[in-house]
């Protein structure tokens, strides 16, 4: 995975290659039941309440902590070129889907070569204050995720 932060243009770029065909990877990004299986870093879970993947449509979902705390967000689809690209505007929200602005603009590109699929995401934050908030929230999640991974590893080692 390649992860680049350009503080001057307020853009984060993430590029990753997956060992799967494009159609499957595309589905994993655009179907709620698949998204919910990977979008939230463990031990958080993702719960999509509503999703219509079409221009003008949106995904309304929550990141749920192990304690059951919900953090709602909305992704409004602004452009879709099937199996090639889609764009959305992302913003935090309350449980009634009232947006908390500002948000961020996401641009996702998909391409396949030799049976592998490359996904390039660029995230533009109109406010870096928001980016700080996302990262500050992730700080806790990240630490918890590491612990969870360690527990998984220890579990495997003791069973093995």
């Amino acid at each position: 995975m390649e992860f680049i932060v350009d503080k001057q243009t307020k853009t984060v770029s993430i590029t990753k290659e997956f060992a799967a065909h494009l159609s499957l990877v595309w589905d994993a990004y655009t179907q709620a039941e698949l998204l919910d299986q990977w979008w939230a870093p463990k031990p958080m879970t993702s719960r999509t309440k509503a999703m219509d993947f079409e221009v003008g449509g949106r995904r309304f979902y929550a990141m749920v902590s192990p304690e059951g705390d919900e953090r709602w967000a909305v992704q409004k689809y602004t452009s879709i070129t099937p199996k090639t690209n889609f764009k959305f505007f992302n913003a935090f929200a309350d449980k009634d889907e009232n947006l908390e602005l500002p948000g961020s603009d996401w641009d996702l590109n998909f391409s396949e070569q030799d049976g592998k699929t490359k996904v390039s995401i660029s995230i533009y934050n109109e406010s870096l204050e928001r980016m700080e908030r996302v990262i500050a929230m992730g700080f806790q999640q990240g630490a918890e995720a590491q612990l969870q991974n360690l527990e998984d590893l220890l579990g495997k080692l003791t069973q093995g």
Partner: protein
Amino acid sequence: MRRDIFQAIADPTRRAIIALIALQAMTPNALAEHFDTTRQAVSKHLRILTECELVTQEQKGREIYYRLEIEKMKEIDEWLEQYRKIWETRYSQLDDLLATIKKQKGEK
């Protein structure tokens, strides 16, 4: 009031101020000589940087010197590192999911 550290570095003049005082503590007057702006404008930037705790003031005789808080700058990179880790976790989960689906579909 605690200001946003990213807002502090988003402005090109403030980034230039940070670069200058990283080398040595400076007075607002000395800093203003490096820019095409008024001393008032430089003071405003310094106030924002101070509120972000990126710079601290130090009284020397009749002059106030501003110095950079290096540790605070490191915090920015630590935040970004955490954000990178979120994506690594997320994508390792997607790797696993794709492998599971492929297996279910009977692909090699």
